[in-house]
């Protein structure tokens, strides 16, 4: 299979920032992303669990895109994470139809 190298972002972020984050991803050049709900987690800001009562909840946003888009998103995230909980990890992936990313 002929695969094109791209970057994949795994972004763990609180729900309230989701709309902003997605808008930013679109602006910096991501043509797509997918969002998942976590059920629990832990980090420097403590542990959380999704109970339906106290709604501490985090989302995982997976976004595959070009290195340039990825760098721009990281810049935004670096600023965001100064105040808010969350982490991001970057990895290398291969995709088919590379021009659609």
């Amino acid at each position, binding site marked *: 299979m002929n695969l094109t190298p791209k970057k994949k972002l795994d972004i763990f972020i609180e729900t309230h920032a989701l709309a*902003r984050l997605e808008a930013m991803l679109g602006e910096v050049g991501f043509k797509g992303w997918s969002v998942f709900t976590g059920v629990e987690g832990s980090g420097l800001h*403590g542990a959380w669990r999704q*109970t339906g*009562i*106290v709604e*501490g909840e985090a989302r995982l946003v997976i976004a595959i895109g070009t290195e340039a888009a990825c760098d721009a998103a990281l810049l935004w995230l670096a600023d965001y994470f*100064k105040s808010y909980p969350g982490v991001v990890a970057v990895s290398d992936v291969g995709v088919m139809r590379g021009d659609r990313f």
Partner: protein
Amino acid sequence: MLEAVTNAALTNLLAPAILFFALGALAGWAKSDLTIPDQAAKALSLYLMLCIGFKGGVEARVSGVNQDLLASGALGLAFSFLTPFAAFLVLRRLCNLERTTAAATAAHYGSVSVVTFAAGSEYLRAIGVEFSGHMAAVLALMETPAILAALLIVGSNARDPGTTFKPDLWREVLLNGAAVLLIGSFVIGLLTGEAGMQKLSGFVAGPAFQGALCLFLLDMGLVATRRLQETRAIRLGLVAFAVIWPILSGIAALFAARAVGLSLGDMTLFAVLAASASYIAVPAAMRLALPKADAGVYIPMSLAMTFPFNLILGVPLYHAAAQLLGG
């Protein structure tokens, strides 16, 4: 008097809803794997708010917009907005809480808990004491001002100065789901009145409501105990605050309520509101507005200490005190 309170507390203790809370707490404490699915819990909580708002609106329509409504509404706004300043001072000075966390915690105590209000209403219903429908509107009005107070307290250094990210604070604060649903349902109740109630009575009141409350309290018991077990170090000062502050706040509310001439039932409910602490709207707002505040402090306090205290002892206590004050 003491005997009366004890009896009242006992009556309260044997209400199914309270017993289901105890069951949940026990199961959580014993680390049973019993869990209520989170979406079901969320749906139950929305349902309870819809019912409380709607019933309040219908009853408010029946009794009309009167002076009591205005008085208790104004009182509610004042309590929600002003008590956080006092709570902040206590939390800073006496409990040595860090500045931002103290402000966030104070906001929780200025705001209210819907389920504590529901438990209080059911208690009054069970012992046959009347109260006004518009207290549901007071509940809704008291959700938000406390958040504004916390923002004022912390001032401009709420977020890291280095960041340029500006959250959409006002929308989240003013249009939080709980407030919107409560106020919206209240207005719908007002608009549809008895005709609407006839259609929905079996849905918003009676066994359906009672049963949903039982199920939700079961989950509250589970979640509260689990949250408490996960809390690393529970500081004695904070436990004391979580129990003593509601009593003081409740008593202050009783005096204020008597001053404006509320009825016995309304006095009790207003004390319950003042004594209760938010665990839905305020935590959500704080995550956004004061991300540096420690959720590991304010969540266990409001959810796992103040909530059970009010549910089990506070409600009958505030009612007994209201009677003493000659409400």
